[in-house]
């Protein structure tokens, strides 16, 4: 009886998690808790600020989602964010025009990502270690380039692009938030409806079966990591507008928060299960939650400790695996 109940509950919860209902519910609950306990939590200005923060996290986590879908993990994201951030401000400071600067930043991210994907698949090395190593190289190179100091300045249009007070046409949202949602929608469409998108899932579910279906492991991993590199570099570029100048370690909070956003959204870190839509919900929920903890005026350390418990609790509510006895 007990087993029947738990299996019933887990499948139903599992279906809800798949459709994103549980995530929507948790976003709503966190919002209501914030509204009733923190003064000004639900004011328009605070919501706008949260949406901008969620956009930065969401874009970085979108790349992580693609990597997670093929069963990998990208630890080089913070370093690439730092590289994008420093490149954007430095190049602008040297008088490089914005289109060239954007192209250079995104190309750098793409190259780092492609290297990650190529090395992981060619040498069959766990992506965890590969991205740890490339992250160390990129982070060190940026440090050398900037001597660990604030450098350059962001282009003026970028500051408006990422300002929480800015609007996009008739929408009361900052352009960066609109960019995030458009990118997420495009990514979700590509994952569901295009050939490369389906190849990502096939590879994530079963690499051997994917090989027999002529889905190239090397191409899929390179594409996923390449996208992740581009997303991280883009986040760094956008963050330059938010912070005003380039700093090498601007990306360090994103090491774990990008993974946490992916996980809270309900994506499986074992690969093959997940979507960008869930990652959007995860980024929104995580940003709400951190803002709530800041609202309780807790120290950064206490916030981190509570966040740790919450991540586990949230995932426990819908991300449990099947019992081993049920997998035989």
């Amino acid at each position, binding site marked *: 009886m007990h087993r029947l109940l738990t299996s019933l509950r887990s499948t139903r919860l599992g279906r809800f998690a798949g459709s994103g209902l549980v995530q929507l519910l948790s976003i709503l609950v966190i919002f209501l808790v914030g509204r009733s306990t923190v003064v000004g939590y639900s004011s328009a200005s605070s919501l706008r600020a949260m949406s901008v923060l969620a956009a930065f996290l969401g874009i970085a986590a979108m790349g992580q989602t693609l990597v997670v879908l093929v069963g990998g*993990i990208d*630890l080089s994201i913070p370093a690439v964010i730092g590289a994008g951030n420093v490149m954007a401000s430095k190049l602008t400071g040297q008088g490089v025009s914005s289109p060239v600067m954007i192209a250079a930043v995104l190309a750098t991210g793409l190259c780092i990502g492609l290297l990650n994907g190529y*090395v992981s698949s060619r*040498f*069959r*090395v*766990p992506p*965890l*270690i*590969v991205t*740890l*190593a*490339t*992250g*160390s*190289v*990129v*982070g*060190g*190179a940026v*440090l*050398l380039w900037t*001597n*660990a100091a604030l450098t350059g300045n962001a282009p003026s249009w970028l500051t408006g692009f990422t300002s929480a007070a800015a609007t996009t046409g008739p929408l009361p949202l900052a352009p960066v938030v609109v960019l995030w949602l458009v990118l997420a929608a495009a990514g979700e469409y590509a994952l569901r409806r295009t050939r490369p998108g389906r190849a990502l899932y096939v590879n994530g579910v079963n690499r051997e079966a994917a090989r027999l279906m002529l889905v190239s492991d090397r191409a899929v991993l390179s594409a996923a990591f390449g996208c992740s590199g581009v997303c991280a570099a883009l986040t760094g570029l956008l963050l330059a507008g938010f912070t005003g100048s380039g700093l090498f370690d601007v990306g360090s909070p994103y090491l*774990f928060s990008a*993974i*946490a956003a992916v*996980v809270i959204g309900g994506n*499986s*870190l*074992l690969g093959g299960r997940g979507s960008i839509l869930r990652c959007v919900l995860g980024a929104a929920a995580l940003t709400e939650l951190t803002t709530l903890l800041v609202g309780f005026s807790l*120290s*950064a*350390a*206490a*916030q*981190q*400790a*509570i*966040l*740790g*418990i919450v*991540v*586990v609790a949230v*995932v*426990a509510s819908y*991300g*449990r*695996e*099947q*019992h*081993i*006895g049920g*997998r*035989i």
Partner: protein
Amino acid sequence: MTITQNAAARPLAQAAPRGARIAGAAVRSPLAVVTAMVVALIAADLAVTPTMFSGGHLAGSVNLLVPTALAAIAGVPSILSGGGGLDLSVGPLLGFVNVFAVAVLMPHGLGSGWISIPLCLLLGALGGAVNGALVAYGRLQPIVVTLGTYLFLAGIALVVLPQPQGGAPGWAGFLSGAWLGGYLPHSLVLLLAAALLWLALRRLGFVRLITAVGSDTRAAYTAGVDVAAVRLGAYTIGGVFAALAGLGLTGLIGSGDPTVGPQYTLTAMAAVALGGNALAGGRGGILGPVLGAATLFLIQSLLSALSVSSLWIQVVYGAVLLAAICLNSVVGTATRARPGAAGGA
């Protein structure tokens, strides 16, 4: 002249096939690459700093190496138990043990080694057991669980001790010392304790159970292995090793510092991978990761001995790690792909 040469050559010629066999087996071992790297790096280090193995230098180097090596060992059981097993909380746990010993036990008058060290080990086991219970019985993905405990422990350490604080217990002073005029550092006791614990678990068959669960969970389950209990045990043992690393860290820095611990996590994972353990589980031991930790340590000490700018160290460190991992994989696949070929040569 010729006679002596011939006489010397004959036994050599007879020994050659057996030597080749041993060499072949050595190259096929997953430890081959990492051992070669350690030997090459020690040679390079000796060339740069000939005094490396003198009494004064040796103790300092070993004290630096011991926490890293123990952190690498702490990462082994969870990875070995498979199912995506991975303990990201190794670093924060060892850091929290350090904070616990200095900022919690000392002020309560529990600084004596006979009380404080067992309590620290118990704390490590408890931390590991929480991870293990959430993974094995909560059926959550290990990376999520240990990411949660990573954030929790790193945060709590800063709440308990916001600033680094001196006043380490007496046993920390002992651990930083050495016998035989510096040639036998006391901190090796911790490494020895970890090795003995691992050997004991091997004799008891528990390591074999972890390996069985890690290499094929379903087969182990159908064979009657209590998969969940084995996983719980694996994470708990990892926690004990992390606590030993925390003791080593306390001896090394002689104070309590809440920010040092978390840095050990990624180094430990890199050391385990360098040591030739499969990150997918089911294969590996503790000797490889210890050698992996030694490799990472020797790279850093070589670079600083060459007075390379500290900014360059991070770049070179990452590049060497990448190259070493690829080399490990190339040698591994080349030797596993044709098991008979090397024997025939």
